[in-house]
């Protein structure tokens, strides 16, 4: 039973690590900005990478959700503790929020970006299409920044499901998570933490 619990914990932590897609998406997007003017093929390649990540992210989110439920059961707690333990409940709500945000990107923003790219025939993006692309890409980038913050928030909560840490420490960690997410959103964190 103990080893089953550990396996489940491993399977719970692993997809959360894989959910770092917003971090790497933001880094890739920042690198694209630094790259400057380039052939439309570069953008198409970038969009292919970003588009594929949302499907992967759905799968990792669902894996984290169901392994989390198994962890609660294997820990010997009633399943109702998902709704009565405030930390687990908050994690549940935050997962719902990022699933909804991902849905907005996957079913709304990304298809609109793809529609615009399908109208590009030459080697560079025409001015009018670039002007329409910019707000969509900016919105997607902002949502990725918020999503990264929420994922870090979930990790902060995860370490204190059964042993809550001091409130001040939690607030400090949340503030640092917000700062880091902001830094990644603005600059892509070229020096790791900074």
């Amino acid at each position, binding site marked *: 039973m103990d080893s089953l619990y550990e396996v489940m914990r491993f399977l719970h932590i692993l997809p959360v690590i894989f959910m770092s897609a917003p971090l790497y998406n933001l880094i890739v997007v920042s690198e694209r900005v630094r790259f400057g003017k380039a052939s439309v093929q570069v953008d198409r390649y970038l969009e292919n990478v970003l588009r594929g990540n949302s499907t992967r992210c759905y799968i990792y989110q669902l894996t984290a959700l169901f392994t989390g439920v198994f962890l609660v059961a294997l820990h010997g707690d*009633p399943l*109702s503790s998902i*709704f*009565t333990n405030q930390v687990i409940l908050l994690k549940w709500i935050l997962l719902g929020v990022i699933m*909804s945000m991902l*849905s907005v990107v*996957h079913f*709304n923003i990304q*298809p*609109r970006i793809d529609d615009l790219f399908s109208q590009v025939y030459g080697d560079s993006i025409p001015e009018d299409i670039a002007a329409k692309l910019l707000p969509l890409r900016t919105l997607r980038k902002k949502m990725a920044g918020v999503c990264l913050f929420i994922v870090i928030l979930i990790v902060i909560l995860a370490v204190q499901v059964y042993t809550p840490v001091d409130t001040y420490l939690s607030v400090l960690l949340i503030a640092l998570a917000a700062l880091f997410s902001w830094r990644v959103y603005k600059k892509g964190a070229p020096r790791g933490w900074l």
Partner: protein
Amino acid sequence: MVELFLESIMFLHGLFATFSIVVAVIIASIILKGSLQGNAIRGLKMFALLLVILAFAVNLTGAYGYLFYRLPTADSPKSLILEVDPFAHEILFETMEYLGLIGPIWSVAIAWMISYYGKQLATVMELRRTLLLHLILFVAWMIAISYTGLIPTMIAPVG
């Protein structure tokens, strides 16, 4: 074993409620996209059907849990909640109990609009706006109803 079954049903009750919010957001995202081609309409119909299934599943699992919630014993969740915080039952739970019944009807109405108007959704802006309004209200309603169910659960859960 009966306890585990009841626990699982109540867990599914929460899971279905959460997923119905996500599915409503997905439908709204597709509608807001603007250009609705054949694939998008097919996707809309599929997600509308899923929303109906989830809305019915929320109510069916809730109805099952309700049998145990209101047992006329001193240790039933209803009795415990009435002892600790009557507001949680008399106002919050009762609100969920009655307003919760709208969910399946509302989801069927949304699915019917999507199925009946189909391709017209791509061209008639007013239809899209009406559907979007329904979805926004549905999500807000589902969040409010979830809250009214969550507070009593935090005091004395079923299962």
